């Protein structure tokens, strides 16, 4: 007995020393799987004025969460699924689920071996969706991002529910901070936008900066995000289109057209969606907002004082923000139509200090930013704020204002970037109380 004890101690210690890092092999048993959380089909899920989610809560992880009296959707709970605002994919029959899962896996692989099949070679090249890039990205993603963004990019990693705003769910193909023209339809971001998001993080949220990773690593991560986003969006749209919801029975069954040959029906649909959404992504790469050059001289070269034209611009920005205009534009007063087009105060009540929480496209809560706080999530360079105002913030409810005159957007940028700084406000002669 006494002889065995020390040997046992050695035996216990040895594995600790020897195990360390294994090979890169990620179990092939781990797959993305078909989503189980409800699809959010509409962002008008409830009344305004909810409190933000309490820590540890994500409003819709599963359909039954809505039955919890503390859930912000509880009040409307019963009707949410009936009215088609939410759809519960767990209602799909097991057989159909397996079919869908098999098809999605044929196109997108699994976390250990990600791929995007069914897109043409130009798209693969432009979006860098080759297998080497994706598997490198997948490894980095599992190391750095998974605990927030989740294995399938669903924003439901273990940390996800504890932070607010919750991590991005990529499966809608919607991204907030882009430099892509969103004025007609919501578009995916460019690779550059995602790269920048990774480099700078999103200040004011839990999303940290990853600028200590190498450029190659970040590019691989960007490719992998595109992969996850494509996969999620194809899954989303397929569930939405291929299955009929029966409110009476509460089932999702395959639509009329597909009953005869479920596999080929879904396969054709997935194939179509993959190339369609990949095309959207490709298109986005060249659709950068054409921001006109900044028209003002901000500071006097000699005295370093604020120039009169900057002062006027800031004041005009305030009028536009508040939706105040005159019949004819004059001095700092914009015209009525312009002011009506801007009218930021309709959401940013009291410059955002009293804005209310609303549901966003992901079914989580969002609030028009308090703009008297200097933190800008999408970056605080003037051009960042220009992009935000021009094309809105996808998914959050902040609409595009691309119809405004470009110089008026710059006025708004100047005003918004002056707001948080009392000394600047005083110098520009604006009051906000």
């Amino acid at each position, binding site marked *: 007995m006494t002889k065995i004890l020390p040997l046992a101690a050695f035996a216990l210690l040895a594995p600790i020393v020897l195990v360390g890092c294994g090979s890169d092999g990620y179990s092939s048993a781990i797959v993305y799987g078909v989503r189980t959380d409800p699809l959010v089909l509409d962002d008008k899920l409830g009344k305004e004025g909810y409190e933000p989610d309490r820590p540890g809560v994500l409003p819709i992880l599963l359909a039954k969460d809505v039955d919890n009296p503390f859930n912000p959707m509880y009040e409307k709970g019963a009707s949410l699924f009936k009215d088609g605002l939410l759809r519960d994919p767990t209602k799909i029959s097991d057989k159909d689920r397996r079919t869908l899962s098999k098809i999605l896996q044929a196109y997108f692989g699994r976390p250990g071996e990600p791929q995007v099949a069914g897109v043409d070679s130009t798209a693969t090249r432009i979006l860098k969706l080759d297998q080497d890039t994706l598997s490198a990205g997948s490894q980095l993603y599992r190391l750095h991002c998974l605990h927030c963004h989740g294995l399938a990019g669903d924003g439901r990693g273990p940390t996800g529910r504890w932070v607010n705003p919750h991590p991005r769910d990529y499966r809608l193909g919607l991204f907030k901070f882009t430099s892509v023209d969103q004025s007609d339809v919501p578009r995916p971001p460019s690779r550059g936008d995602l790269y920048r998001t990774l480099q700078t993080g999103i200040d004011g949220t839990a999303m*940290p*900066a990853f600028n200590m990773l190498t450029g190659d690593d970040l590019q691989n991560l960007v490719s992998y995000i595109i992969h996850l986003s494509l996969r999620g969006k194809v899954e989303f749209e397929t569930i939405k289109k291929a299955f009929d919801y029966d409110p009476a029975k509460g089932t999702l069954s395959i639509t009329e057209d597909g009953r005869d040959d479920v596999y080929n029906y879904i396969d054709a649909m997935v194939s179509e969606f993959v190339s369609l959404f990949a095309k959207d992504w490709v298109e986005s790469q060249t659709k950068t907002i054409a921001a006109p*050059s*900044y028209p003002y001289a901000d500071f006097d070269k000699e005295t*370093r004082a604020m120039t009169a034209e900057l002062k006027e611009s800031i004041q005009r920005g305030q009028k536009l923000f508040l939706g105040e205009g005159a019949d004819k534009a004059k001095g700092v007063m914009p015209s009525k139509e312009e002011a009506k087009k801007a009218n930021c105060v309709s959401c940013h009540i009291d410059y955002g200090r009293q804005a209310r929480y609303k549901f966003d496209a992901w079914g989580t809560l969002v609030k028009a930013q308090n703009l008297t706080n*200097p933190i800008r999530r999408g970056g605080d*360079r003037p051009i960042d704020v220009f992009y935000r105002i021009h094309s809105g913030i996808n998914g959050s409810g902040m609409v595009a204002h691309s119809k405004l005159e470009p110089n008026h957007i710059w006025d708004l940028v100047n005003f918004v970037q002056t707001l948080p*700084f009392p*000394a600047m406000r005083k110098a520009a002669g604006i009051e906000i109380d």
Partner: protein
Amino acid sequence: MGKWWSILFGVTMIACTLLFVVSPFVGWWLPEGVSTHSWSVDLLFYFILGITGFFFILTEALMCIFMYRYCSSEKAGRTVAHAPGFFVRTYNKWTPPAIKGSIAKVLNDPHKIEMAWTVLPAVILLWIAFAQVDAWAVIKYQSRMPRYAEKNQEFTPLQIDVTARQWEWRIRYPSSERFVEWMTRKGDPEILKDFQSFAKIEQKDDVKLVNELHVWNHHPAVLQLSTRDVIHSFNLPHMRVKQDSLPGKQIPVWFTPIKHNTIRLSADGDVWIDGYNPDTKAQDRNQIWDLSCAELCGWGHYRMVGRLYVHESQQDFLDWLKSVEAKMLPPRAK
């Protein structure tokens, strides 16, 4: 066979000691100290390491030897043996009789033994406590903090705001214009006010970066440290600087580097960074100076690292600051 235990302990202890001995040669030791005060921290470290190391090895060795020698033997059925022959012989042969006598007296008087092993460490501790005051004062006493220069011979330190959050360092610099005013105009009450307001009030033209801490060589830098969420610990191993950042507090940290690791090649050229020298194409890990978090602060603690860039000169730093500012500007017509 209880002797196995003593062998297990002995081997472990020898392995630990060997690991210690080889670590400087395989890069597991302290990084090069490159601030004006780093030598005093190192001196204290080595001194304390010497004392504790000496007693550690002594006590561990004795313990293992005694365990081996006096382990109960099931066969013989005896629990206590005589002192190891080698020790007894050596002791008898080499110890002068007078000392032998007093040692015997002490050993036979438990009260005296207790006194000896309480007082001796206490004296050593007390001595260390006094000896370290100087080093501590230079690094931590706020009365020693570099301040805005009142006179021409003095230097105004570079002031930077460092905010920790899960899991990154948000770093805010003054604008280049403001920076030049701080450096050149001395003893001006208005500048003093501006200098003091920097940490409290954010300005529109501040330069904000993540995880990149830039200073320059031979010039004091004061960092105003705070945190947005939990406790973090700001650690610059090369500068021998470590300070916890506490929620709700702004804590100044300062140091003066004496070596640089970053040179801008030209006004718009790239920086020599991250251990890579584009001139010689040489790679040198030792030129990468980390800024790390030294307090377990959550899941992402492992990746809460930034970089410290010590520029060669003030001009170098200023060029860099201006280049960052230029990237922030809106697009203008040429």
